[in-house]
């Protein structure tokens, strides 16, 4: 492996090329655009194994990817914001059909008002779609997550579509020193599905029509599948660490530092919270795998804490909190407060985090405060 400096988007494109999806159907949207742009350059230079389908919308992109995956082909797309929202309907088809698609979501705010900058409202709004969701702290982790995501998604014990989420601009458009593997050392074997639905030799109906009882049963199975795969995620994370020499907590959450008080968060500004934690002496618990929700691991990590503050870049409108807070509340009964930060790309510097964190002692349980 060779460290090099490049834009986060380009590092993702590099690793997607290595993962060699057979079909890539992408419709460019800021800030994910540089991923399909670079993959198209690879194709033009004859360096891409798969075929790119030039589609006319994100709805078509995800539909083409569902079709390819149902045929038993590894498939890929990347999108952001309104693009992911336009995919919404088909996301449920992909999870219901148990298709191991992997997509990169370059996180961006949703309209209105129109805003192209980073927050998590796009992927957070798809948290109940049946997809796995991982959030990377930096482009290095996003690259590593892409590799792990295909291995997890395609595992027979899983067979679930997966979103790898990276903060738009903060990661996609930032040049960082990144270690992109030159080859995957056989870590992600070729995808050989046992059930390729669209096989003319073995015709099979999938995702078509189900009456009440079979529908109910299949949807229950989808949730059972989500809840059963924690060991697979950990196993793939641990195996990756052995082969590539990088690890991220237990693969589900990462616990940084020590302290009687904890901060829970996700994504790229976790780095700033860690810098602040070094100064103020609290513990940072970063959720890496958001779906399935690692409730047992979080409960254990938060047990006995004097206070927990959840920092997040999304809102679960009408609940008074962000979605991550609401999820963490299910595993922690002590004093817990919520900070909504960074919506629409608002910078979240260490100085602002310090001002907010110092308000925790005066805040009431369940109180939410906003960055500005």
């Amino acid at each position, binding site marked *: 492996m060779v460290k*090099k400096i490049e834009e986060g988007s380009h590092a993702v494109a590099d690793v997607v090329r290595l993962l060699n999806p057979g079909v890539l159907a992408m419709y460019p949207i800021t800030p994910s655009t540089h991923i399909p742009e670079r993959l198209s350059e690879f194709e033009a230079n004859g360096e891409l194994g798969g075929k790119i389908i030039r589609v006319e919308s994100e709805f078509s992109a995800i539909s083409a990817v569902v079709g390819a995956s149902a045929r038993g082909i590894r498939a890929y797309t990347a999108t952001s914001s309104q693009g992911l929202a336009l995919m919404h309907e088909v996301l449920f088809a992909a999870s219901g059909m148990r298709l191991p698609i992997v997509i990169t979501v370059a996180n961006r705010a949703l309209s209105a008002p129109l805003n192209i*900058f980073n927050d998590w409202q796009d992927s957070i709004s798809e948290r109940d779609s049946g997809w796995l969701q991982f959030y990377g702290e930096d482009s290095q982790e996003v690259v590593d997550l892409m590799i792990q995501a295909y291995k997890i998604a395609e595992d027979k014990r899983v067979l679930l579509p997966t979103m790898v989420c990276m903060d738009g601009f*903060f990661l996609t*458009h930032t*040049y960082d*020193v990144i270690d992109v593997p030159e080859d995957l050392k056989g870590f992600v074997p070729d995808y050989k599905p046992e059930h390729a639905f669209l096989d003319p030799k073995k015709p099979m109906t999938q995702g078509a029509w189900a009456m009440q009882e079979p529908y109910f049963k299949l949807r229950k199975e989808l949730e059972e599948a989500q809840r059963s795969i924690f060991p697979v995620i950990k196993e793939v994370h641990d195996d990756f660490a052995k082969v590539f020499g990088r690890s991220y907590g237990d693969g589900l959450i990462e616990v940084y530092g020590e302290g009687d008080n904890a901060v829970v968060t996700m994504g790229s500004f976790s780095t700033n919270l*860690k810098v602040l934690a070094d100064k103020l002496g609290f513990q940072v618990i970063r959720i890496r795998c958001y779906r399935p929700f690692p409730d047992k691991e979080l409960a254990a990590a938060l047990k006995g804490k004097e206070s927990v503050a959840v920092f997040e870049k999304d809102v679960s409108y009408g609940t008074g909190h962000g979605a991550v807070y609401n999820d963490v509340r299910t595993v922690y009964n002590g004093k817990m407060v919520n900070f909504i930060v960074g919506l629409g790309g608002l910078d979240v*510097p260490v*100085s602002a985090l310090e001002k907010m964190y110092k308000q925790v002692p005066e805040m009431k349980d369940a109180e939410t405060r906003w960055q500005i």
Partner: protein
Amino acid sequence: MLEVRFHGRGGQGAVTAAEVLAVAAFGDGKYSQAFGKFGPERRGAPVQSFTRVDESPIRIRQEVYEPDIVVVLDPGLMKVVNVRQGIKEGGILIINTKDKVPGAWCVDATRIALDTIGKPIVNTAMLGAFSKASGGAVSLESIIKAIKERFPGELGEKNAEAIRKASESCSLIGV
């Protein structure tokens, strides 16, 4: 850690300058990070970009608020933007200007770019001035290598010439 802020106008290549500087610093064996402050991409509007350089991996994900070095690509910005905002005590200000601004490193990068590249695109020349004014915080050799990688062929050669000339001709104006 060295923190740099570029001020330019949309289309002048301030983001490219920040990125090339980061690539060059990496070429010097350091860790670096570069990004733009993106907005509605209006040609001519004031824009900013940032580069960080350090001996160890960079653990910060925010804009540069207290730069060690500020690079101004367009002298007209001095009237509309406070380019000195947050600059550290003893910090370095580098300006593309025909004038002599007291306390700043000045270079007529527009003239140099017209003479070498044939266009008033000054982002690369200003990196030459950066190397000189910063006392080689990022080496001229690595900047030239990075620019040739980014712009292969004749364009890279012309930009390299602009970088060398700007490095030679920029000077600190006394207060």
